[in-house]
């Protein structure tokens, strides 16, 4: 499986762009790590249920009620660019 690992393609899926040297290094390091995790194939997992988390409950609900939380100013206080209570981003529609 790890032979098919393409670091640039996977980086693109995660919206990361790698330099030449990063790409070379990651390709080799991650191939080594993917080779290491191949050992999980040795384990007989037939009939074993997967564990997503270790707490024994499924759905947790609370009442859907408004309450005090951030003000708009607080919510925007860490935005890199903003104006008129809006976050500014590059134009999306041409």
């Amino acid at each position, binding site marked *: 499986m790890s032979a098919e690992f393409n670091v640039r393609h996977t980086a693109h899926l995660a919206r*990361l762009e790698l330099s030449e040297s*990063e790409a070379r290094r990651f390709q080799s390091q991650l191939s080594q790590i993917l080779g290491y995790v191949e050992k999980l194939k040795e*384990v007989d997992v037939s009939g*074993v*249920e997967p564990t997503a*988390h270790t707490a024994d409950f499924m759905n947790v609900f609370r009442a859907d009620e408004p309450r005090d939380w951030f003000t708009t100013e607080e919510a925007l206080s*860490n935005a890199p660019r903003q104006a008129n209570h809006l976050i500014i*981003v*590059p134009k999306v529609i041409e």
Partner: protein
Amino acid sequence: MDLHTLSLSSLQARFRSGEASPSEALEALEARISSVDPKVGGYLSRNLNRAREEAAVADTSLPLGGVPIAIKDVINVKGDPCTAASKILQGYTASYDATVIRKLRAAGAIPFGRLNMDEFAMGSSTENSALQRTSNPWDLSRIPGGSSGGSAAVVAADEAFASLGSDTGGSIRQPAALCGCVGLKPTYGRVSRFGLMAFASSLDQIGPFTKTVEDSARLLNVLSGKDPLDSTSLETQAEDYTRLLGRDLKGVKLGMPKEYFIEGIDPQVDTAVRAAIRQYESLGAEIVEVSLPHTEYAVAVYYIIATAEASANLARYDGVRYGRRAEELRNLQDLYVRSRSEGFGEEVKRRIILGTYVLSSGYYDAYYLRAQKVRTLIRQDFENAFKKVDALICPTSPEAAFKIGERSGDPLKMYLADIFTIATNLAGNCGISLPCGFADLEGSRLPVGLQLLGNNLDEAKLLGIAHAYEQATPWHKQRPAL
């Protein structure tokens, strides 16, 4: 009077007897930090003015009244920077208190200082911090462990009475072992994660670093409990985690997992841990060998599950709503790609890519789903072991602190440093590391950690077992010469 050297409990005793005030304690601590932190590098920043105001009006009758507690840079304290030691969050100011901070404040404590760590808690040496280097207080050329390296180093160096860290694969226990203090990873769900920047949501847990086991229990009393803001926090009866401190060990059964006593452990670590086991026997505990047969798969399972969860959690850092945004952007896609590529450090990128790969179409079943199934088998190993014993006893780390720079080119070797801690996160149970001796390496005297692992929600029993050993040994009283 060297107030900064006191444990949290001794400090509070001085507050209550009137021998010292919270303001004096804070000033003593600040003087200590100013004198040794230029060498140790544990703190990223401190808001001294705010802490002074809080100390002046502290109510010392509260459970942690007037005690400054230092915080890992991944837990939000309103008004303080919170960067996860990442460039992508440089300049970020927390706009709310994490639940653990709210609880500390309600107990009278003073959150004081931001602690260095591996970027987004990814690492075992704190070398992955994008902001600064932290050294081991016992040998400044060595790493303090990680990811909560700052949290461990400042407690060991008497620069904090106690601190908070987070443990996803050993990030509390391993640095506590390498720096020579007490580090507790509570059961998954015991402590709310609300306000902890998420790395791997099914594994992350907040816990305390302290100078003594008693302090650890007292902090857990404050930190634990169901939180409506964290749907994975557990609904449990309130309990006093100090209640089994001082109890003798008659009838207590400790299991030595045979897979944790393997070749490759540093001989001095092995010697110290085996001496601790004999000490337990002489204190009345019964030692039996147990097996956790899927241990050898834990690192592989962990690096699939933790990176998969991280790749999803770290998708939020896109340069739009907060954090650093790249400049001179061509379009929105460019904003995402360049903000992330410029903002994340190397280890974080490596793990995001690995996590993205194991979740990607065509590979999900082979990697992620299979890892989740092996995780079930690892959980069952622990369930079976805890049917036979009260706790497991083993090394925290296979070796003492290594030199800064020694491992940085070899991520797989770095990952294998966590072999004794990560299975616990996968299984969800609790664990503690406490000092059990020293290794002499190249002229340095380096702490060795003993790890005790407890069943789900068995923290009180675990702390009692740890306390009995601590009280019978001198290790927790040793301090580095700085």
